[in-house]
């Protein structure tokens, strides 16, 4: 998604601290994780204390990789209020040793499979009570080359 079309005002407040949307400085979307400078482990979303080291002050903000692969997925057809069905949910594996729950989009349902490569984007997640788009991060299935 081009930053020109991305309205930061419409980001779901619940997700706001979890990612950096594209901007005029940086056309990429970034997930913001905590990395422990003692044990080296990443956590997403950010944590208050490293659960391994159990010490204050070992966590730093880090961007996660923007490419991942699908561990599993499903297609939601009976959607919660505000979500347009069908939509895809799944878990994707990142190189930092993290698997995260996310919405997934694809142009072609045939490309949706376990192991498929996906790329982080910012985009519409749902509609609010007024029918306006609510934005967040999600992953998009990459075209095979």
């Amino acid at each position, binding site marked *: 998604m081009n930053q020109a079309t991305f309205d930061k005002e419409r980001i*779901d407040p*619940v*997700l706001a601290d*979890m990612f950096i949307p594209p901007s005029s400085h940086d056309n990429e979307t970034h997930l913001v994780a905590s990395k422990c400078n003692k044990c080296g*482990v990443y*956590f*997403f*979303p950010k944590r208050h204390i490293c659960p391994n080291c159990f010490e204050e002050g070992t966590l730093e903000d880090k961007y996660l990789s923007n490419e991942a692969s699908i*561990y*599993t*997925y*499903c*297609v*939601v*057809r*009976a*959607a*919660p*209020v505000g*979500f347009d069905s*069908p*939509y895809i*949910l*799944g*878990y994707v*594996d990142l190189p930092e*040793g*993290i*698997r*995260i*729950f*996310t*919405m997934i989009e694809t142009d072609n349902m045939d490309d949706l499979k*376990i192991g498929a490569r996906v790329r982080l984007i910012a985009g519409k*997640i*749902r509609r609010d009570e007024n029918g306006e788009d609510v934005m*967040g991060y999600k992953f998009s299935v990459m075209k095979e080359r």
Partner: protein
Amino acid sequence: MREISIVGAGMTKFAKMPERDVIDLGREACIKAIKSSGVPRKDIQIAYCGTARTGQLLNRECGVGQTILLDIGISGIPVTSVGNFCASGSSALREAYLAIASGMYDVALAIGVEKLSVRKGKGLPLTSDGVTLLTALGFSPPAYFAEIATRHMYEFGTTEKQMALVTVKNRGHSRYNPNCQYQTSVTVEEVLASRPIVDPLRMLNCCPTTDGAGAILLCAKDLAWKYTDKPVDIIASSLHFGLYEKNKDMTTFNSDRASGKEAYEMAGLGPKDIDVAEVHDCFSIAEILHYEDLGFCPRGEGGPFVEQGKADIGGEVAINPSGGLLSRGHPLGGTGLAQTTEIFWQLRGEADKRQVPGARVGMTHTMGGFQDSIELADVASSCIHIYRQGW
């Protein structure tokens, strides 16, 4: 540890009952449990009440147990509310068990009740407590179990037909259980033609929204003979919060494996010794994982296990002879003690046309609940009890 026996059990019919409130349901289950037990009310020394959603749905977060007991003339004893998602009723039983095991009490009452039919959003999946982040991204429990199904199918070749067969088996059992919300059989074709909810799960792969209650009277085993000549012993009680790990294999529930292992060790038994089990078939794929996680079959063989009839009454182990959650419905806090009531009847030979022949050892299993974790996936609780004929 002290040996503990169940001497009475009771449950309401499970159904959508808009005209009945949660107190009314709990009262009926308690009256049935008490009257079936021969235990005078004055002998009951402590009570626990398991609920998962009465605060949010009915503005009754505490005191449901107290109100139910007051209505039947019991006050002055310790009464505590217990919550653990879908294992809330089972957790009430477990706290009652621990209270007797401590030596401080001899006779306890466990209640599990819920009225889910009042929730808004008819036809939409029930969400889990406190999962703000997940919900913002479109999460629901059926989506979670559908993701598990996708991966299980990928790794082990499990089929939609095998998942359908779980429903077919349990709905078949339900024909003989007047306490179920659904009491009719269905075919594989009907399951596969039912409304898609979250691919690969369809409506008939999902348990329905229901109201209902169960109640269990238990006591130190050495007192059980005062009340009945057919006590049912609780020989294991285990509970585990999910073991949340990075990149956890999602085709198995660590929490269930941990609870199962502990329960078998406590009982001194193994999966082959279980004659009848009521397991948490909230979705048909869940029951397939439970076969594996509870040791009834090897990893990945849950699909063939149901397909080959090994989970039938008359198979290797009778799974969900009551009809399970898929037939009875799933009123969160109500489910666990309906399961225990079924096993109480099964082990006493009182299960009518759905009786598992020769059932001597039984198991109940509830699990569920989600943490608001984007990164770590498991369920928030898994509770297992093992029971044996005590006479």
